[in-house]
């Protein structure tokens, strides 16, 4: 990616569409996608487009005129001081090839053009100034997507919570059912012990799967009859 960027800035000519560089801060984005731009913006025309690679081209020729303006300034008013400042500030500025440029930022007389040079590394700011619709739209889309994702997660959680509560109730009811059944068996089991031992003489009528209670009743009836 870095080589491509250097390649473009050196050429100082707008590259063909399919070689647009990646948005500086977003390395993960698709290589071929136009950053901060939707199809509608692109179709709106060449004047609508963000100027990032051509800005590199614009910056290169702007350096020489600035140089001359600065040299004029320094020659006129700040002869000795300018030289001293150039020595101190050239060490601190790593962005510029020209040490004089850093001085120019301190003078209010000089137009803010050099500030654009500093933003070589911060594409987003300059693009937002020149084309406010693009970056905003992207951010809005991102925010909306995030909200939609949050809603989707909430929906998933809600249904999950309900399922858990249902399952808890099912297990609770199953336990209760088992307990009640056991109680029922025990209660009728006592009667069986008393009657069955005393009166069991003949065959028992057996349905396919008799309930214990029913079998016991038949036993008792048999006894009585």
């Amino acid at each position: 990616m870095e080589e491509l960027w250097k390649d473009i800035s050196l050429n100082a000519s707008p590259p063909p569409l399919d070689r647009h560089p990646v948005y500086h801060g977003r390395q993960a984005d698709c290589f071929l996608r136009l950053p901060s731009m939707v199809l509608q913006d692109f179709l709106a025309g060449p004047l609508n487009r963000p100027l990032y690679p051509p800005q590199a081209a614009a910056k290169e020729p702007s350096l020489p005129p600035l140089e001359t303006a600065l040299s004029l300034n320094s020659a006129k008013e700040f002869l000795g001081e300018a030289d001293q400042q150039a020595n101190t500030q050239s060490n601190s500025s790593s962005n510029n090839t020209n040490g004089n440029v850093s001085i120019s930022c301190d003078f209010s007389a000089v137009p803010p053009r050099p500030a654009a040079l500093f933003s070589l590394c911060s594409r987003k700011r300059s693009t937002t100034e020149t084309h406010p619709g693009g970056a905003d739209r992207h951010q809005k889309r991102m925010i909306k997507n995030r909200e939609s994702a949050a809603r989707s997660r909430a929906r998933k959680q809600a249904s999950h919570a309900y399922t858990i509560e249902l399952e808890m109730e099912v297990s609770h009811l199953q336990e209760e059912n088992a307990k009640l059944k056991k109680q029922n068996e025990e209660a009728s089991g006592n009667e069986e012990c008393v009657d069955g031992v005393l009166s069991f003489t003949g065959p028992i009528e057996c349905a396919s799967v008799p309930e214990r209670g029913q079998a016991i009743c038949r036993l008792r009836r048999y006894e009585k009859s």
Partner: protein
Amino acid sequence: MSRDPLVVGNVIGDILDPFVKSATLRLLYNNKEVMNGSELKPSAVVNEPRVEIRGRDTRATLYTLVMVDPDAPSPSNPTKREHLHWLVTDIPETANASYGNEIVPYESPRPTAGIHRFVFVLFRQSVRQTIYAPGWRQNFNSRDFAALYNLGAPVAAMYFNCQRENGCGGRRYL
């Protein structure tokens, strides 16, 4: 972390304030009970549901039922929150809503964009009172409605999700 679907689905917050449930509300569309937070198709909710209310009081208490869509016209852009779908008052306990006073007739949910929540809110009436229909269905406010008619806090609430029958509704432009 509450596990109540009403809280997780943000119904409590967007439409209602937290309340203590003091009645059971059952809604049946085509004899199938609606589970809180479940999803239903528009074709399943075309006609009004059967309503079953069980409260603590065995006295003849009357209830008011409100059905709203807080995600109108779309959940990401709820400018018409809440859209009133149904308003029935004077519903006696254990009876169906058809025994009540249908102030605002049932409107079938027909969401065009996104997945909407459809919320039913049940209020207990202290007296048999006259409740007037609002001038229009959209931008209804359940909180204000309850305050206006002194209905107090809701006694039960339930919601389901509903989206378009088919498709996604097309692309949305910002």
